[in-house]
């Protein structure tokens, strides 16, 4: 019977093409708008490193201008550390299992052969970064402690970069030219794209690609390779020092700092350690504001950084309301459409169709409209996400409508149509079978 009902549904839709198209479009628009905003929301609010997000902590120390308003939460404190504080923590024996200070910088990559040079973003960090964040290696391994201490000219490439420069071959032991210096490749990492990119997540960068080149922090500072991310300062630098030294010793914040703390006790001990560190620094005249240190694990940090922006939440809610309006509208259109079905229903009832059979037949039609609405909605959602991609730079990875999302969209539309259709379909099935004869 099902295939018969599908055939009848198609014939019925052909009979009222405008009405059917309107219903499909209404559902499609509703689904499309909702899926677009929801996909963005869903990807923004995803856990970038689920198995470890509870033990990785971003560190904040409140070294800011004493004249600024008081600190009430982590959101009021700079999300980055000064070079000095990060270095002090890296060199100390803290309770953390691992720590990594890091920053982003820009280089010009000069390929071998005839390919033209190009700009590339580089992450300068410590070898602990790779184990701490469970970065998967394709070839080689992280550089060593000694490389960090020795300011070694070593590099780790991302898979894409390795594909581009070395055709995907094992490039460990070969070298890459960054600006005017050669770096020996010690490892190639596999596809690794935490989403959002939690470890450096000012909102304009939270959805940017992970870097494709990593080098030791100490080597980058030697460069000197300046930071390409935000650098915030509240106090003039010391003029008596050479420019670079002045910058490094300044109260300017420009490095990100992460610690791996495996247990709550370890986290508490680390927090105490930070508090003591700030107290010591106060004695030498720094940290003029009241004592404020914060450690935030990944989910907490995504909140602090407002990675899921409030306007996106509002938009998702609004588009869900819009979707409901579309569904309601579809109910109206279905009522209008089914009003015209009295004749056929009465005829089928007279020929032996039970109420149940009429109900099923029309439910199949409604389901089909929903299915088509879902497909239209998916296409619209795809276009919508393309538009989001073009509107906001750094959102490239949001645009991937994965199969789960696709299936969800189509199921949601079909379900919505069926729910919208239940009442009209029920009404149709209750139409009196005697309708036909009586109108004569």
């Amino acid at each position, binding site marked *: 019977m099902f295939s*018969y009902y599908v055939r009848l549904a198609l014939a019925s839709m052909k009979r009222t093409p405008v009405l059917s198209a309107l219903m499909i479009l209404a559902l499609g628009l509703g689904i499309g708008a909702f899926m677009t905003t929801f996909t963005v929301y869903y990807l923004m609010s995803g856990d970038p490193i689920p198995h470890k997000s509870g033990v990785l902590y971003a560190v904040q120390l409140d070294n800011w201008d004493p004249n600024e308003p008081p600190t009430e939460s982590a959101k009021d404190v700079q999300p980055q550390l000064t070079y000095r504080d990060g270095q002090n923590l890296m060199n100390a024996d803290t309770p953390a299992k691992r720590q990594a200070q890091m920053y982003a910088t820009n280089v010009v990559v000069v390929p071998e052969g005839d390919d033209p040079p190009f700009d590339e973003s580089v992450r300068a960090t410590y070898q602990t970064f790779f184990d701490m964040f469970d970065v998967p290696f394709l070839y080689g391994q992280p550089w060593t402690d000694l490389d960090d201490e020795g300011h070694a000219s070593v590099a780790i490439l991302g898979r894409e970069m390795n594909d581009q420069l070395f055709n995907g071959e094992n490039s460990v032991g070969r070298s890459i030219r960054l600006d005017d210096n050669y770096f020996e490749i010690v490892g190639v990492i596999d596809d690794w794209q935490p989403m959002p990119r939690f470890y450096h997540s000012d909102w304009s960068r939270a959805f940017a690609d992970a870097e494709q080149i990593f080098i030791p922090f100490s080597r980058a500072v030697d460069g000197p390779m300046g930071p390409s991310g935000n650098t915030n300062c509240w106090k003039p630098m010391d003029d008596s020092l050479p420019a670079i030294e002045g910058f490094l010793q300044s109260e300017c914040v420009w490095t990100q700092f992460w610690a791996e703390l495996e247990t709550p006790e370890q986290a508490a001990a680390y927090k105490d350690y930070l508090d003591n560190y700030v107290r010591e620094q106060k004695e030498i005249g720094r940290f003029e504001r009241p004592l404020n240190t914060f450690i935030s694990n990944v989910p907490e940090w995504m909140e602090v950084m407002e990675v899921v922006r409030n306007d996106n939440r509002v938009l998702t809610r609004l588009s869900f309301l819009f979707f409901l309006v579309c569904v309601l509208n579809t109910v109206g259109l279905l009522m209008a459409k089914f009003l015209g079905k009295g004749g056929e229903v009465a*005829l089928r*009832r007279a020929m032996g169709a*039970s109420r149940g059979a009429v109900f099923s037949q029309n439910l199949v039609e409604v389901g089909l409209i929903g299915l088509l609405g879902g497909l239209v909605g998916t296409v619209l959602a795809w276009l919508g996400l393309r538009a989001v991609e073009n509107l906001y730079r750094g959102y490239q990875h949001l645009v991937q409508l994965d199969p789960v999302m696709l299936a969800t969209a189509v199921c949601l539309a079909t379900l919505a149509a069926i729910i919208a259709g239940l009442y009209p379909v029920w009404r149709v099935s209750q139409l*009196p079978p005697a309708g036909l*004869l009586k109108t*004569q």
Partner: protein
Amino acid sequence: MLKMSNISKVYRTELVETHALRELDLHVEEGEFVAVTGPSGSGKTTFLNIAGLLESPSSGVYELDGEDVSQRNDKHRSRVRNEKIGFIFQSFNLIPDLSLADNVDVPLRYRGWSGQKRRKVIGEMLDLVGLGSRKDYLPSQLSGGQQQRVAIARALAGKPRFLLADEPTGNLDSEMASVVMNLLESINDEGTTIVMVTHDPDLAHRASRNIHILDGRASDLGSTGPANVTPLPERGVARV
């Protein structure tokens, strides 16, 4: 075959109560061809609807093949309609966007027959009404008489023993009406019981028995001959 005792049907609307049938008693034997006449608004269609299980009487007992069907549930009544009863309407009522074959197929689908059996029956039925070569036509491509013949093929497809026709020739010219009437007569000859509502005295004469309904009550005019039938003036009754 059909036995109605004390059947009444009352339609209640906010303003009026219409007694469409009043304590109607009537029976039809297997194999009869009964013509039902009566002025407009006298309750003929209501009678036919109750006979065809499309409506339930307000009171009284209706037995079909010895079974009291008036109070059975929708599913059972639908099955009885499907298996035992065929309907022919004045205005053909073919589904416009289905082919002739698909129109004839409608009652067969609810019977649950296999595709093979359905195709065979559809072919036979359309052959019977002389439209076997046009099974893929749409109803709009046929004349009124041809459409009514398709409707008859549809009514007969499920091999019902009981055929109900509400003014089947009302929308046809006399030539077409006669073709349709011949068809009904031959069906009756094969054993199908027919109850036909008609305004046309000539057609009524061709039935084996005439029943006249007036103000919701039936009177049996017995087997027919021209002398038995007095054409009654149409009463102008406002429909509620």
